[in-house]
């Protein structure tokens, strides 16, 4: 079985997380720039005295497909690398994946990772 590990992290932590995933034997990953908020909420910005509450904070979403047995190690690696201990460090979650296909060869399942 394959799992999809998704992590939403602070943007400046993306290089650390990438390095940790490479050290854990992950061969590929996808990132996207996203915005959102959790308990951290946003911040305020003031332009010519007009105050704006900015709810959505920029984050990076990292998505990695991994084998079942590697999941715990990968989640641990991401968590350790992305942690600052301050509010707003983000989330990591895991969901099962029904099928994975490598587009070039047509391989399926673990062979496609």
């Amino acid at each position, binding site marked *: 079985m394959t799992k999809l590990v998704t992590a939403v992290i602070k943007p400046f932590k993306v290089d650390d997380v990438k390095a940790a995933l490479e050290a854990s034997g992950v061969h590929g990953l996808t*990132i*996207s*720039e996203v915005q959102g908020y959790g308990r951290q909420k946003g911040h305020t*910005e*003031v*332009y*010519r*005295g*007009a*105050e*704006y509450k900015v709810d959505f904070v920029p984050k990076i979403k990292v998505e990695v497909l991994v084998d079942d047995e590697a999941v715990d190690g990968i989640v641990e690696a991401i968590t350790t690398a992305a942690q600052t201990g301050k509010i707003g460090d983000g989330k990591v979650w895991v969901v099962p994946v029904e099928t994975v296909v490598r587009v070039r060869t047509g391989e399926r399942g673990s062979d496609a990772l």
Partner: protein
Amino acid sequence: MDELLINEAVTNAHVSGNTAWMLASTALVLFMTPGLAFFYGGMVRAKHVLGMLMQNFFCMGMASLVWALVGYSIAFGPSTSGFWGGFGFAALQDIGDPFVVPYTAEGGLTPTVVFIAFQMMFAIITPALITGAVADRFKFWAFAIFVTLWLLFVYAPIAHWVWDTDGWLYRRGALDFAGGTVVHANAGIAGVVLAYVLGRRRGWPGADFRPHNVPFVLLGASVLWFGWFGFNAGSALGSGTLAGWAFLNTQLATAAALLGWIGAEWVRDGKPTTLGAASGAVAGLVAITPACGFVSAMGAMAIGALAGVLCALATAIKGKVGIDDALDVGAVHLVGGVLGALLVGFFATTDTGGTTLDGVFYGGSGQLLLDQLVAVAATIGYSAVCTAILGLIVVRVLNGRISARDEEVGLDESQHGESSYRFHFAGGTGSVFAASRVKGTREAQA
């Protein structure tokens, strides 16, 4: 060499020196309008930035032609009524005296043709100033009609009143070195009135109206600052000591206003902002404009510091009165222009050689202050009434406000069929959702 030949040689040297500086100043003032476009453009949201840039750039085309055809004649024509110059110099077929006399006695003469070009650049930027107040909601063609009429019926007559030697305010003794009343108070009140006539932007106040590109704002303010040396020091109409005073005072007031604005923010909001620094510099440039040739270095610093603080505080007024003056043209140009014009009544000194009148702080009688008040009141009153009439015609009768749908989409797409930025969200190689070129004409597509 006889005395006559020597005198002629001296006069020629003066004329060529004046001409060189005035030609350079003219180009500097032209450059202010694209500077203003980026100053404003950075402050609007990304979907409206081309609309803002276009409204400003359009003025560079329209106002140049209108000025040559009839604007210059209305402002500086031969009529001696005191209220307008008439059509005697229309299309510049006849330009009257070949030389104008600069304010400075030492400066000699300046070719009238250079003066026409110099003043043309003022006629471009003054209507362009209004765009900031009415950002994000004008149909382009409606803006084009409004701003052309405004140039003819509001700007050109007021320029005549204040700057032409036959103008009724000039004859009264009111002083406006480079346009505190004619340009800034005038465009400032027009912006506020037109913003009221057009109505608020959808969602104001409360929605997200943050600037989309503060670096553009700072870039634009810097171009304005640079160009303003032509605007102010060029208004000496020559290249002597008076131009030097205007230049120096412009720099000092702008510097003081920059610090004044961010100081006010620091106290009020907790942080000095980049937008505030850019705004403060512009507020200082505005306030010193009417005064730069008439005040001492200390006077310039005082005017600048006052403008920086008061214009920063004035940005709170629009929320209280409920007029959506989008980019604070009222707070910066109306307040700054009026402040500078009135402070001339206090800080004017004969020391710079720009005037024979002293302000209240230099032992003057207060008559100058009264004349400044009259000039400010006449400018604001006339501009407000005429702008309201022109605005009501263009907005209510000709339906000049964009539709709710077009406002949501933005001026860029709805008015110009373009988009400003095509950056991929995460990468640097261009959008994966690239457009494909459609060959043929519009009809063929349909």
